[in-house]
């Protein structure tokens, strides 16, 4: 392979990216060296097993990926703004929508939510960390490395261009030659390990590490949503793992699972992909439901309406999520019976979702609603998500779906549920739990600007796309003719897209502004919260979370305690030494070896892949012989941290 095949060349955009990547790298190295931060980076972050720090790293990575995916989106919107635009050629456009979809789902939405789950769930259940802190670090680093491997395809070797669904035989060697598609397979495979481990980790954490008295039906709704999500992850992700492995075999080792030759079955890929892919959309929506439940209850100053109905709705949605995958390809010709069955199951999934919407509305009823930024996002969610929901039901009607399939109607629908659902939740959760993570709030005034800009931009961008779809505009076309008549609506859509881009910049500015000027929180209870994460005395909980593990007496325990004035300051008698896990650099090193191995496989340099895998194996062995069982935090240290004098 020649160097000009290795690096992507010949495009000013790419050269620009090369330069900015190099400058950013140099900048980071300079910053760390100049401020002598290398040691800090290693001991505080790269080797941490603290769930709060891991959560923060997840969220930072997700915001970076949101930027990357967002730039992809704006490039696409620019290309589609007017008919016959010559900004991107077909191949570039195909690469960009492929990376946009993959990054937004796998490397933005999921990590953002998993980050919030990491920060919040152990605190909400009154635990000092997750069940397997070391594994949690492995989860994060494999996700991060998978994401990086996927992202470098942009400048090294070329990006995948077969769509985020990577349908076979398009994604086969014959129709998609080169390393691009391998990046997709290996990047997703490596980060998928992390997701599956997260699923196991948090399921065990929630089942085994709840504070005394916290029965399952006293758990906060966000914790419930996390539990249900983890169950979906554990059942769904192995399917993706296997499907990716089979396609990897097809591409690298000449097998014929999905290929045109050798009796391969391309429809099998579509089935396996959506068998994972549909549960995946519930993996990114259920935690969002959990976040909104917390926020709506908090800012209505009222307990949730129909708590049990909400829990059972989520369980039902999770079960149903495995019974609807065929609705992604009603047009495959599976026959009337199959299509009828999946039409009905898909519509039925709207019922528990509708129940939840009404429960949120009735939670606000008889409340005292405060329009804080997180609450605005939650209200915006209800208004916009309903539009996504009802168009989802329309898409579920197979006979009509034959006309919506592969059009902008579908594109509008899933952006209405994924943005108004998941992205709004990510922003809401970020603002809501920001004081828990960083000790100060995000500025509310700027935050509201972000909300209005983003929400209005979002509607301007995606609402017209329903009509483009009904007017026959297929998704994934890179340009269209003047005569098609799609020009004006596309222009409107592009304007909305850029408004969302501006909103994102304002959000980032708000992070900087608030860091400089917002007052620091003096207590742990920034919003007059209801659940245990707000019960820590300091704004940011210490690394062991709770000096004394709380005993839970009911739902909304912390709120009830405040109402009944039962909160007493801690004394020395309450304290005992605390057992905590040690930091470890092994997960980071292991993930780096995964990168080496993955990179080798992408370019089919097997010597490199083998070296990487040996490294991974070595780190596993090292861990197996590691008899380091953590350490104790002394009562003295706790007293000092918590400012306890008595």
């Amino acid at each position, binding site marked *: 392979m020649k160097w000009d095949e290795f690096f992507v060349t010949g495009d000013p955009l790419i050269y620009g990216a090369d330069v900015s990547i190099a400058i950013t790298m140099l900048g980071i190295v300079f910053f760390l060296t100049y401020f002598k931060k290398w040691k800090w980076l290693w001991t505080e972050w790269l080797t941490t097993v603290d769930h709060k720090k891991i959560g923060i790293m997840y969220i930072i990575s997700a915001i970076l990926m949101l930027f990357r995916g967002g730039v992809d989106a704006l490039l696409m919107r620019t290309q589609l703004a007017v008919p016959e635009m010559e900004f991107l050629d*077909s191949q570039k456009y195909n690469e960009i929508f492929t990376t946009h979809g993959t990054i937004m789902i796998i490397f933005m939405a999921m990590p953002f939510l998993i980050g919030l789950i990491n920060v919040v769930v152990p605190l909400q259940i009154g635990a000092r960390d997750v069940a397997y802190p070391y594994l949690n670090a492995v989860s994060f680093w494999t996700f991060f490395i998978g994401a990086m491997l996927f992202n470098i395809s942009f400048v090294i070797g070329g990006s995948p*261009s077969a769509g985020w669904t990577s349908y*076979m035989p*398009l994604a086969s060697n*014959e*129709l*998609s030659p080169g390393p691009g598609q391998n990046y997709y397979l290996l990047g997703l495979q490596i980060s998928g390990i992390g997701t599956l481990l997260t699923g196991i980790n948090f399921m065990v954490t929630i089942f085994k590490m709840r504070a005394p008295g916290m029965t399952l039906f006293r758990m906060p709704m966000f914790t419930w949503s996390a539990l249900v999500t983890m169950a979906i992850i554990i059942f769904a992700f192995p399917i993706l793992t296997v499907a990716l492995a089979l396609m990897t075999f097809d591409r690298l080792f000449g097998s014929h699972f999905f290929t*045109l*030759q050798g009796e391969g079955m*391309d*429809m099998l890929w579509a089935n396996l992909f959506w068998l994972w892919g549909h549960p995946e959309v519930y993996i990114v929506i259920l935690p969002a439901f959990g976040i909104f439940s917390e926020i709506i209850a908090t800012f209505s100053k*009222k*307990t949730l309406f*129909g708590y*049990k*109905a909400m829990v059972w709705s989520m369980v039902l949605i999770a079960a149903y999520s495995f019974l609807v995958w065929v609705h992604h*390809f009603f*047009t*495959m*010709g599976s026959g*009337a019976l199959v*299509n*009828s069955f999946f*039409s*009905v199951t898909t519509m*039925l999934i*709207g*019922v528990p979702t509708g*129940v939840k*919407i*009404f*429960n949120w509305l009735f939670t*606000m*009823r008889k*409340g005292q*609603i405060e329009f804080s930024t997180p609450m605005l996002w939650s*209200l915006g969610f*209800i*208004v916009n998500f309903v539009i996504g929901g*009802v168009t989802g*039901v*329309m898409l579920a*009607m*197979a*006979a*009509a779906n*034959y*006309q919506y*399939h*592969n059009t902008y109607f579908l594109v509008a629908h899933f952006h209405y549920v994924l943005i108004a659902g998941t992205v709004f939740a990510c922003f809401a959760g970020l603002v809501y739990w920001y004081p828990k993570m960083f000790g100060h709030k995000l500025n509310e005034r700027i935050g509201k600007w972000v909300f*209005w800009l983003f*929400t209005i931009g979002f509607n*301007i961008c995606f*609402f017209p796309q329903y009509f483009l779809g*009904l*007017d*026959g505009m*297929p998704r994934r076309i890179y*340009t*269209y003719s003047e005569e098609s008549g799609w020009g004006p609506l596309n222009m409107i859509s592009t304007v909305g897209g850029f408004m969302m881009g501006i909103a994102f910049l304002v959000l980032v500015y708000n992070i900087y502004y608030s860091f400089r000027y917002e007052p620091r929180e003096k207590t742990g209870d920034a919003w007059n919260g209801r659940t245990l994460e707000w019960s820590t005395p300091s704004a940011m909980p210490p690394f062991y979370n709770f000096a004394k593990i709380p005993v839970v007496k009911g739902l909304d325990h912390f709120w009830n305690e405040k109402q009944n004035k039962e909160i007493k300051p801690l004394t020395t008698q309450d304290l005992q030494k605390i057992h905590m896990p040690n930091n470890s650099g092994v997960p980071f090193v292991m993930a780096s070896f995964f990168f080496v191995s993955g990179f080798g496989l992408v370019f089919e340099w097997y010597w490199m892949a083998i070296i990487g895998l040996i490294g991974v194996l070595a780190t596993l062995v090292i861990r197996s012989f590691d008899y380091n069982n953590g350490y104790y935090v002394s009562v003295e240290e706790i007293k000092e941290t918590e400012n306890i004098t008595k």
Partner: protein
Amino acid sequence: MYKRYKPFVFLGMLLTVFLLSGCSDLLVLDPKGPVAQQQKDLIMYSIIFMIGIIMVVYVLFGFIVYKYRDHKGHKGYDPENKGSHLIEAICLIIPLIIVVALSIPTVKTIYSLEEAPKGSENKKPLVIQATSVDWKWIFTYPEQNIETVNYINIPEDRPILFKLTSADSMNSFWVPSLGGQKYAMAGMQTELYLQADDPGVFDGRNSNFNGEGFTDQTFKVAALTSESFDKWAKETQQEAPKLTKKQYDQLMLQGHTKEMTFSSTHLKWVKHENDADYAIKVRERLSK
């Protein structure tokens, strides 16, 4: 006050503008045949329900958010209001009724689309085999012994039975004016009935992404009176050149081509529904 309701006012305005600007101009809602007509009817039926659902949610939302906002003279605060079996039952039963109301016509239409349109059951359908190859469409009229590339002529008021297959990637055969799409896959054959009410020319395309030439993988469908269709078929059989195997193999290469017409078909050399890798083999052979 206005500020709080801005998104609704805005959305309402947007909605009205779009709805008034004429749904009937939208391709899918302007059917030119009985198949597309059935689908449009189903879509319009569902839209009524959807607008109803949205209205209910928005009215409830507006009422609750306005009444229970934190303001002076706030009344009715009840922080322990945990639920009500009656409300929860209503929230469960009404959506279930809606699902039933939507399911029945959906299933009916699904079954009806599997057959020739009502009223044309007794007319013998015209069979056209549509084969997609990156990034073009090859159409075969087995009974007429005609093959065309990137266009089809069909008679009006007669069911057309499309037998779809692909020489390589997974495609979707779609003529929005005449009806919904169906996939064309290598090594497989799927069937789709369409029918045109009146003479006219309609746009058709592959709607399933399949690589670099995807955007331009389109074709034209011309519906003719049955006399002109017969005339065209007869003329083509007499005047159009025969398709040679060499020519056909050239068509197997990736790329676009102009419209073509032949008075013989490829069926004697290959049936793509049984031979999934024919095009791949041809490409390998020709690239040597």
